[in-house]
């Protein structure tokens, strides 16, 4: 931990990439009615690295599904690049998905285990309109993408994704994003199932990817330390609502909301003492 601190850029004047007003998701009816996401507003700027932090059950995964267009919002509007997002039919959805892509939590279930790695990568090239490229050009693109994530394409051909380790699979996912070059990358806890060492590699690659392509990265995590390390701005989510948001430094170092304060104080740290003396064991009862 000796290298220079990455400087905090200001994105407030950058054009909006994805924003939402009053986005709500309700599951069930009557007695079983649960509001998973409750009228949230957000503004993600182009090139920004945003984290959405929440504990399990806070609604962050439901929100991510709505952002991706995999499920519809019950209420509210989502704007993509300044225009109201329209995903009312299959064709429009396809267009939208050229602009937004995702990396999921569990690398082992993210790949179709019956498809070879080449197939996965070729698919990305075809989606970007590279169907008519020559075989050499395609191989060149795939090699480039693999190099970006420190994998050797020559060793991956004819292999299946399950032959790789969890960390390698997540890197392959990043290679996929590298080929697709979407406007927005939504990363849903991409490091929660990989080791600390692979985690560092993956985070570095995501940052490089952002710097190189200027894409917006929406990073969903439960780990506030991780969110602080990687993001430009942070949204703290509790019970389907954003209780606090702003620049990473401001939110983490000077939290205002009670929930944020509690979350930060409950995380074990190494320079500050992790205070257990105030914990009341009977409080949970």
């Amino acid at each position, binding site marked *: 931990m000796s290298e220079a601190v990455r400087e905090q850029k200001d994105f407030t004047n950058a054009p909006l990439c994805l924003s939402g007003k009053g986005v709500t998701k309700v599951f069930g009816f009557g007695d079983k009615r649960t509001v998973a996401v409750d009228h949230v507003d957000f503004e993600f700027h182009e090139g920004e690295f945003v984290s959405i932090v929440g504990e399990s059950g806070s609604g962050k995964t439901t929100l991510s599904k709505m952002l991706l267009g995999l499920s519809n919002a019950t209420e509210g509007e989502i704007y993509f690049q300044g225009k109201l997002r329209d995903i009312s039919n299959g064709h429009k959805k396809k267009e939208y998905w050229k602009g937004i892509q995702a990396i999921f939590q569990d690398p082992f279930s993210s790949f179709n285990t019956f498809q070879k790695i080449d197939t996965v990568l070729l698919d990305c090239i075809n989606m970007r309109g590279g169907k008519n490229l020559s075989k050499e050009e395609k191989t060149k693109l795939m090699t480039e993408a693999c190099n970006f994530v420190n994998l050797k394409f020559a060793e991956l051909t004819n292999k299946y994704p399950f032959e790789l380790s969890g960390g390698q699979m997540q890197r392959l996912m990043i290679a996929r994003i590298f080929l697709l070059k979407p406007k927005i990358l939504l990363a849903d806890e991409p490091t929660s199932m990989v080791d600390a060492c692979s985690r560092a590699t993956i985070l570095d690659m995501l940052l490089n990817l952002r710097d190189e392509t200027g894409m917006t990265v929406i990073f969903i995590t439960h780990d506030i330390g991780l969110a*602080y390390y990687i993001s430009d701005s942070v949204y703290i989510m509790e019970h389907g609502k954003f209780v606090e948001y702003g620049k990473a430094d401001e939110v983490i170092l000077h939290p205002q909301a009670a929930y944020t304060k509690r979350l930060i104080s409950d995380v074990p740290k190494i320079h500050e003492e992790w205070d257990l003396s105030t914990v009341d064991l009977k409080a949970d009862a």
Partner: protein
Amino acid sequence: MGKVMLEVKNLKTKYVTRFHEDVYAVDGVSFSIEEGKSLGIAGESGCGKSTLALSMMGYYFPPLHYMSGDIIIDGKNISGMDPDTVRKTILGSEIAYIPQAAMNALNPTQKIIRFLEDVIHAHDPKKSKKEIREMAEARFTEVGLPLDALDKHAVELSGGMKQRTVIAVSTILNPKVLIADEPSSALDVTSQKLVIKMMRELMEKGHVKSMLFITHELPLLYNVTDDIMVMYAGQIVEKGTAKEMVFDPIHPYSHGLMGSILVPEEGTRGQKLGAIPGAPPNLKKPPDGCRFAERCKYACPECFYSSIPERPFGEGRMYRCLKEIDELKEVYSHE
């Protein structure tokens, strides 16, 4: 120096796969824990830390097999005992074990008090139900668990509460060693704090004599245990106090691991993280030389074939590397 509660000497265990291949998951591990102390084990998934926990209980079932070494609990060697004796005389009273998904291991049809009866009856079948209830109520009050939880089913309790109940049940016989394998990883940070606080109380009140804590979350380990061992590919690569290990790691692997710590503290934002490329070696055929050599930035040709001994230094510290300490510190300072 306190009384040694748990001593493990050169323990070796292996898994036998379905295709009859041996996987040497724990390969020559030695350490000891004194009374009132807690020891943490850190390492990547697959490094053998959970297998070490299972091996230490002496509770061997295929595919896990005991090979050699000693496990001495408070002067009593339990290695090589048959699983049935271990279950009756060791588990619960000498060693308590809390696996990661412990809270999901409770039979949903039984009330909590039944688990306590099971644990106590395994060692003292004569105890009456009334005595057991008194014991349980005393302990539950002490650790701040509501007494009505005793007559509830596991499903009626929240995740954090369930995990704390499991800990209370498994430590009711005041074990000498508590082995906790990722006891709070599946919980929210708030529940995690309660679980840790409760374990610490049990230690402070002397109900649990010593603790072995296994987790991949380094900041948690740093805050919970006195000493930390770093495990890699079935071996201990470095050992020291929590502070020494986090702020002054010697082994290149520990150095990388500690460099990857992420906490919400000023100054951590945007710093370069210690990343280690590559994957751990295949333990079916462990390398002859240093097991970390393949991924080590500082490896020299000799590292790949000469066997690396444990090298003690300082006060009870140890590392497993060919390079001298000064040599390693020198390279780290230039990074």
